């Protein structure tokens, strides 16, 4: 199986990765090789097998509805690329 340039473009857009035409070409070749490897799976008969998402059969635990975290807004914002008056700054999204 091989991917075409349109597939690569679509995936790059979904993954939010800016890519030059040159990078797309390299990615197309490398991803196609990887999908040749992955295609080995397709020959396996898996009818009737339950997918395994996890190695342990776990259920989501419940906990008491109490406050366990303290407010660390300043510590968290100190490591952000751009903040002002306690707000995270991003390019304007509403005209």
């Amino acid at each position, binding site marked *: 199986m091989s991917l075409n340039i349109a597939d690569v473009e679509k995936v790059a857009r979904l993954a939010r*990765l*800016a890519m030059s035409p040159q990078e797309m070409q390299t990615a197309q070749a490398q991803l196609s090789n990887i999908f040749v490897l992955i295609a080995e799976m*397709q020959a396996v008969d898996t009818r009737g097998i339950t997918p395994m998402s996890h190695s342990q059969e776990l259920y989501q635990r419940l*906990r008491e509805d109490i406050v366990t975290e303290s407010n660390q807004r300043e*510590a968290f914002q100190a490591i952000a690329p751009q903040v002002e008056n306690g707000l995270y700054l991003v390019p304007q*999204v509403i005209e």
Partner: protein
Amino acid sequence: MIDSSISQLGADLRAKKISSVELTQCYLDRIAKFNPALNAFISLNPEISLEQARAADARFATGKIDALTGIPIAQKDIFCAKGWLTTCGSKMLHNFVSPYDAHVISQFNNAGAVNLGKTNMDEFAMGSSNETSYFGAVKNPWDISRVPGGSSGGTAAAVAARLCAAATGTDTGGSIRQPAALCGISGLKPTYGVVSRYGMIAFASSLDQAGPMARSAEDLALLLNTMAGFDERDSTSLQREKEDYARDLVKPLAGLRIGLPKEFFAEGLSNDVAQAVESSLAEYKKLGATIVEISLPNTKLSIPVYYVLAPAEASSNLSRFDGVRYGYRAPEYGDLANMYEKSRAQGFGPEVKRRIMIGTYVLSHGYYDAYYLQAQKIRRLIAQDFVDAFKQCDLIMGPTSPSTAFKLGEKGDDPVQMYLSDIYTIAVNLAGLPGMSIPCGFGSNKMPVGLQIIGNYFDEARMLNVAHQFQLATDWHTLYPKL
């Protein structure tokens, strides 16, 4: 001092033959001297390390001490440590000073261990050679023209070069066991869920597991005692009785049944690795074990299954890096979407982008059943292979890696070649089983060979017993590289 086991160092500290400050300074001096050639550490913070050492020394006077009190431990740079740069080997987090501690870091802190520094690693733990790190490749201390393995390559090189008493790693597809093998040290990936993933930067959450890397099985047991335990902040952390992983170290091995999967000794395995592994099996027979041939028929499928599931989980986990709340933001951008796209394109390296793209593709509309669901179904077949195998044997052994350490740059251009080198380790993660690697000889190029030991779920104490008995009978684990 640098050749002493952790229990010996602990005894010396308690007897006040040495202080933790002296020990920490000794390792910091070695790092200053040898790290420029090895590149095993990404960040050091001698003031914090020595402060912790002073606190440990004070603690010896109070009597509230632990097996690791005062012991300098290096931490893989995937663990968030408060006040420490925590980069995960990526430009994306090149300036990220963590505001909190991972559970593993808190456990070491509570024990009074010293955080000696953060070790280099493949970017976001994606790699088998440590060449994908934004901070440059790590060199194998046995031969600096060769890779240390990955992704916990900095840790493996630091332990092998005795730049720390022991260190931590994480293993998603072999990232503790393979670098341990390539650098001639011991490493253990516990059963999935034994060590909390809280504060450990996520790659593939259903596979990621932290574990210790050290010079002997005995040291691994002491580290695992500190690292393991229930943590409610990780929803996959298992609620189990606390156990002492060192409790069975001295048990004799008579009657032990070792399973050898025939698929691990087939095409693709280097002769020199096969020979070293076979010699160690002969040693196990002398120790009273019997060898049983077993089959893990779906071994070959573990690679395609892993390279669907791990990238799928990674593409989801790494969507959090958007240049808004922390980490890298592109210097120039247009609108919001453009800011995301540029920050991610510039912040992630080529291998990480490749895996995000694979994952995005297999999860996208129209491909989910054919790839993601099919891979999860085969994952069950792979796990079932082990259930069947453990009906005939107590433990499984084989090579950790098909060859010894390869040259830097040797597999750089071909991702598929690199992926194939994970053939013996990946299935263990897919099944969620514990696995370890211990040194068992040298290859034709004088590079270390690792023996892999795979246990049944929660059988870490027995695996450590089996490794320790081998290390009592052989001296491979005591050999170290000339720096």
